[in-house]
């Protein structure tokens, strides 16, 4: 396998792992508080819907959209996603925003469902199915986006192969998250999510800058070898921003009010 494909595999794996951790937390809450039948039914339905969407988008992207235009659009979207993730990760590292507390979100979800009078049973529960479906579909769409965008960048000839490799990376991430989740049986609070989000933010921004620039017509110095230079640049900028913001941080922080007021939407919107 070429270096390009390995890079796509690693990037898709890391980016997808973040989304799967978030989706898995919600599915776990539904499974524990309502029942696993509803949680898994919602997740399975969402996976089916995603498969259809991915198949349709994949065909459209590969056959219809020209590679330069594709790079421009993908670069633009990746930069937007990457900068958004990077901003939150920097605020958390600087101490201006609480570290993403999966346990607090989990407890909040459990309390909400108990307050609604939800209880364990083996019947399919509409609220449980829909909650699981929504979270898996929305987080899964982000994974689909990652797979298609990362996979589409491996040259015109190997594009479909690239999507396959990116899908393999996402599949491995899903497998890892499910195995880890099954072993610890908790909302994956031990996964250093902010570190993962920071790395993914740097990668998405760097890849987005590189591909977006190519789409604009920029010929990067030494072509693909310029990518590590962009990564180093954004790392230095992010490091300096963390140092600058840290001096303004309060001594201690609880999870941000918005996360506890509306944990699901905060998860979905990243």
């Amino acid at each position, binding site marked *: 396998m070429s270096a390009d494909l390995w890079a796509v595999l690693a990037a898709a794996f890391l980016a997808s792992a973040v989304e799967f951790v978030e989706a898995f937390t919600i599915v776990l809450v539904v499974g524990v508080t309502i029942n696993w039948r509803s949680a898994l039914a919602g997740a399975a339905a969402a996976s089916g819907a995603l498969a259809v969407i991915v198949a349709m988008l994949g065909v459209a992207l590969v056959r219809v959209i020209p590679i330069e235009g594709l790079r*421009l659009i993908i670069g*633009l*979207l990746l*930069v*937007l*996603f990457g*900068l*958004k993730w*990077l*901003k939150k990760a*920097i*605020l958390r590292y600087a101490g*201006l925003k609480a570290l993403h507390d999966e346990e607090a979100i989990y407890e909040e979800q459990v309390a909400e469902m108990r307050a609604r009078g939800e209880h364990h049973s083996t019947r399919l529960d509409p609220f449980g199915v829909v909650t699981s479906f929504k979270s898996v579909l929305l987080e899964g769409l982000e994974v689909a986006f990652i797979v298609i965008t990362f996979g589409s960048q491996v040259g015109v000839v190997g594009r479909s192969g690239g999507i396959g490799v990116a899908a393999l990376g996402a599949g491995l991430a899903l497998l890892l998250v499910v195995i880890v989740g099954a072993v610890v049986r908790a909302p994956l609070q031990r996964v250093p999510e902010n570190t993962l989000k920071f790395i993914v933010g740097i990668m998405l*921004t760097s890849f987005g*800058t590189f591909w*977006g*620039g190519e789409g*604009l*017509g*920029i*010929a*990067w*110095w030494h072509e693909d070898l310029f990518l590590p230079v*962009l990564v180093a*640049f*954004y790392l230095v*900028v*992010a490091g300096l*921003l963390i140092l600058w*913001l840290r001096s*303004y941080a309060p001594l201690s922080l609880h999870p941000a009010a918005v996360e506890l007021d509306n944990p699901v939407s905060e998860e979905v*919107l*990243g």
Partner: protein
Amino acid sequence: MSHMARALKATYDFFAGDAILLGATALAFALGTLLERVAHAPNPLIATCFVVLLAGGLVTTLGRELRGRSRHR
């Protein structure tokens, strides 16, 4: 809020969620296109402007975040 407004808000939140980042990114891509296609500027100049505008968007939005938090104390 109408269904259309809600859909637009959800789309904005999904893809951007931050007006400064969206503005800086749009400006970087628009200026890059102008420099490349219209002004035929040298490649290093386009690349530098492009990257600096993107990083500048991140710095600006974090600066605004800091000012907002200072005001609330």
